[in-house]
């Protein structure tokens, strides 16, 4: 395992093997090996975990620049000291690196209000197989100088280049955060409550929907809307008053708030640690379609109900793959997001890519003409 300590070393460690057409597997700390396509058998293994410095942080500029191998928890802890945050809420947040979170475009509950990596990354340095250091964007929150190449790296699973440095915009942490768990007898009732929140003036940071199987661990076998709100005390009190009108809910703050969102955020890692053959599908859908997708998911299921992203949990990977192909027949856009290594070669992970897949192949070819880097990691299509 090669572990560069500087961006220059990283460049050299990619360029040397690439020159001899040796395949390279790239990782941060490999927390998400179960995610995406197979972890390739490679000639060289490179980890960015040795690149773990904070390069620049001026809290009043609301920006931070860090190396890709910095543990995500260290980044969030540093920001928390200044009452700031990058609210991506990724799963595996306790072990993941910054580069891994960005390369996998991991996100979590509060994406409804704060968006995903594509909304908070303002600059990046990545290293190509030619050993070149390419900079995109910068350290200011508004910047349209040249192509936004960083966008290509977000969610690329390291198939194009190695992310070396990431610059983020940060936001002040809300004065108070409180969450609400609203139970409903039926999916339809939960969706109706979601719609009424979305149509109103309240702006929760998270609106997650848990089906009864997902809610069981919280001691509530109903359809649950988990809503997170931030603001000053008066605003959060108002959320509580108005959300109470939608259902007979419970409000959480402090430790119970933290443990609720820890459960929701870490549902995937927890499930996979308990089910050796388990798999997780992710479906991107419209807000309207969300009800049908959740209805159709047979086991534990969780949705970012204000954004249109559903996660379905399966104890057997073959069931997940079957479900995914039937979902694709309905026109839903999904991937087998997490699955055990031994299944990854045998099942269709991304059944219905869009018409732009051909362009994506061309982009891959530009960066990696010999298909050396993280081969197949992008749901085995790239």
């Amino acid at each position, binding site marked *: 395992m090669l572990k560069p300590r500087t961006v220059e070393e990283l460049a050299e460690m990619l360029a040397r093997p690439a020159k001899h057409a040796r395949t390279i597997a790239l990782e941060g700390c490999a927390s998400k090996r179960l995610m995406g396509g197979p972890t390739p058998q490679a000639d060289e293994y490179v980890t960015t975990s040795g690149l773990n410095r904070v390069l620049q942080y001026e*809290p009043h*500029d609301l920006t931070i620049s860090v190396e890709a191998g910095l543990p995500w928890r260290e980044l969030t802890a540093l920001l928390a000291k200044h009452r700031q945050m990058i609210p991506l809420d990724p799963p595996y947040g306790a072990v993941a690196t910054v580069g891994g979170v960005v390369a996998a475009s991991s996100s979590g509950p509060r994406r409804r209000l704060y968006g995903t990596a594509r909304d908070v990354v303002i600059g990046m340095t990545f290293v190509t197989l030619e050993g070149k250091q390419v*900079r995109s964007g910068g350290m200011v929150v508004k*910047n*349209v100088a040249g192509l936004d190449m960083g966008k290509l790296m977000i969610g690329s699973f390291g198939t194009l280049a190695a992310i070396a440095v990431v610059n983020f915009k940060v936001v002040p942490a809300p004065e108070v955060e409180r969450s609400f768990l609203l139970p409903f007898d039926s999916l339809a009732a939960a969706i109706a409550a979601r719609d009424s929140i979305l149509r109103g*003036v309240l702006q929760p940071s998270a609106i997650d929907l848990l089906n009864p199987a997902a809610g069981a661990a919280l001691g509530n076998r109903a359809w649950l809307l988990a809503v997170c709100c931030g603001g000053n005390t008066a605003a959060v009190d108002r959320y509580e008053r108005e959300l109470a009108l939608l259902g007979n809910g419970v409000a959480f703050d402090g430790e119970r708030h933290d443990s609720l969102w820890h459960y929701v955020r870490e549902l995937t890692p927890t499930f996979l640690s308990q089910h050796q053959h388990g798999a997780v599908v992710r479906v991107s859908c419209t807000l309207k379609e969300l009800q049908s997708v959740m209805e159709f998911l047979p086991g534990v299921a969780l949705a970012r109900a204000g954004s249109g992203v559903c996660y379905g949990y399966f104890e057997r990977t073959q069931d997940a793959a079957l479900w995914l192909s039937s979902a694709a027949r309905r026109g839903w856009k999904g991937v087998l997001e997490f699955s055990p290594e031994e299944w990854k070669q045998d099942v269709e992970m991304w059944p219905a890519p*869009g018409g732009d897949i051909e362009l*994506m192949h061309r982009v891959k070819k530009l960066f990696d003409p010999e298909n050396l880097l993280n081969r197949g990691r992008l*749901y085995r299509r790239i």
Partner: protein
Amino acid sequence: MLPKGARDRFAALLGPGNYLDQPDDLKLYEYDGGVDKHAPDLVVFPRTALDVSHIVKLAREYRLPVVGRGAGTGLSGGAIPREGGLVVAFARMNRILEIDLEDERAVVQPGVVNLDITAAVEGNGYFYAPDPSSQRACTIGGNVSENAGGPHTLAYGVTTNHVLGLELVLPDGAIVETGGKECDLPGYDLTGLLTGSEGTMALVTRVTVRLMRKVELVKTALAIYESGEDAGRTVAEITARAITPVAVEMLDGVMLRMVEEATHAGYPMDASAVLLIELEGLREQVEEQVEQIREACLLCGAREFRVARTAAERDLLWKGRKNAFGAVGRVSPTYYVQDGVVPRTKIAPTLRFIAEVARSSGLTISNIFHAGDGNMHPIILFNPRQAGDLEKARGCGEAILGYCIEAGGSITGEHGVGMEKNELMARQFPPETLEMMSRLKLLFDPEGHLNPGKVLPTGRGCLEIRQQPLTAGTPLL
């Protein structure tokens, strides 16, 4: 000049009334909102993506440069055909195709005017967030090309944060869709790559945008200062207090007087600077924040802090801000506006530097800008009939942008690079970065048909990165 026969082929393809080829007409397409000028040889008006596809195929046959154009309000020459050829004007692809409030999306053609999206949905309590000052005229296609911003992008993000899907026509005529109504589609974010590519990689023929729910309460405040630097320091103080306004705009004294004379918006004539600050959200939150902002402004030396009492007062304050460039026209024959960005904490020294540049050049430079995100808009007043003034103005602009780069910022926050700042790209980015941008551009546009001479250095200066010249017959795929 069009090659022989080309005009007739386009005329046959498009039919009468769908193109312009007379010099008088073409002259109307030689400029945008910036200072550069160059006329096209032909302007065409497609109505469908298929029209656009046919147009680019024919243009390719004749090796004509192809430049997309929305309303021509851009400020960096993005819609001007630097090398002649074809302007594809999207004025007739101006339909809102779908409004889907339940999914918080709208699907529009590129010629739809920015503000018309909001107009179509505000009755239902929604809006489209990016709000460039030209939003009454500028089009979504142009916004996507330039990744347009606006005052409220401080809170809501720029165009790229609100565009989820595109339909594109590639230079070989292929029609491709990227993204869609859904978020987080797997694969490379081509929508994100192409947004802000300034028409150099594809022509956008359909855009899927996010709609947002209107907030409960908006409060607009005006803080009045005797010193521009105090206003600059206030921005950092607001950040330090963890308050997040949706907009923080600064106007300096010169600008205040020009704007007030033109719009009677209620700005003070004798102040050195004002901050126009807007807060939005839940009533409880906004009311508290207004008081926190008041405290921050007064602490930093504001002589007065007032809050607009009515919607009419608020609209008037914004009218002054958004019509500022027009107001300049009453005072100066013309102006040159810059778009550099600096980290928020460097606003005060940047203002000092701009004042120094003005002093040494002898030109008047006024500032009106998005202070909240450090996006400076120095407006350099000059008289184009005065020999040497345009060059002097350009020199001032370049000096200011050089300072922005040194301060860790950028040469453009929202106006784009275009043909105005492309040589400066080499000062902001190392050669490896420019080379990668160039290779991505050529991946989409291998023969260099689309908007040639834009964004990247052309090599006319002392730069090594050269754009590929037009060559016929190279296979595209």
